[in-house]
């Protein structure tokens, strides 16, 4: 058997995919964050990204899907699809709610007039903490549902 080349990292070529489905209940958010952080840690993501970018941005996407998308309707589910490899993380968070325009809901949370507002930092934080945040129509066949895709480089 040939020895492994010393220069090739042991996680090169490794790709982790996860599918998670949860009820529309914010009590599940912390658990999903832990499930997603684990493969990111295994693949040696930057510690700051593990401690800040991933948990905060993912919490925002999940709470938006549960509260604003599904309105905590127990009949509706939130589906999370995760792909992690050495280049980074891609997470899709899909709700069953009315389609929305994410840019229309974006405001500068740091503007003086918004600083003392209790709400309005969710999408702002997702955009600041991820390399890319996109919204697609869910392929649900019902004319409803949003997919918010978060993309983050590993390093």
């Amino acid at each position, binding site marked *: 058997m040939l020895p492994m080349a010393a220069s090739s990292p042991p996680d090169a070529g490794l790709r982790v995919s996860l599918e998670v489905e949860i009820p529309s209940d914010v009590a599940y958010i912390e658990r999903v964050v832990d499930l997603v952080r684990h493969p990111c840690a295994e693949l040696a993501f930057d510690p700051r990204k593990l401690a*800040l970018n991933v948990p905060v941005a993912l*919490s925002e996407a999940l709470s938006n899907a549960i509260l604003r998308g599904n309105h905590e309707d127990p009949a509706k589910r939130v589906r999370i699809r995760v792909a992690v490899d050495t280049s980074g993380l891609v997470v899709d968070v899909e709700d069953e709610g009315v389609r929305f325009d994410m840019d229309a809901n974006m405001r500068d949370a740091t503007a003086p007039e918004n600083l003392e507002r209790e709400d309005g930092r969710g999408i702002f934080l997702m955009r600041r903490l991820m390399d890319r945040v996109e919204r697609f129509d869910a392929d649900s066949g019902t004319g409803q549902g949003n997919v918010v895709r978060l993309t983050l480089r590993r390093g």
Partner: protein
Amino acid sequence: MSFSIKKEGEIVVVDVEGQLIVGNRQELKQKVLDELERGEKKFLIDFAQTGYIDSSGLGVLVSLSKKIREQGGELRLANLNDDLKTLFELTKLDTLFQISDTRDRALSSF
């Protein structure tokens, strides 16, 4: 995740253990508002044992700070790690709160 409250002299100190997120922010809000109703004026939230904070957690801190100020009191924060400091800087909430590096420094700053 949990919150523990104790008094240090005239100051109500709240320790946030774990996350401060959408699922538990109301519990923190209610605990602090109960103390405010009892007439307490000086509040310190210590984040030494905190993991991450989401936008609803930040929102609750902003809302509590306003309510406490309206009653003539003050809310201060302590022990933000580097990641939490970055979160406060990104949202410019570091300009809204008095933040101390240690609990002792925060307690002596009132």
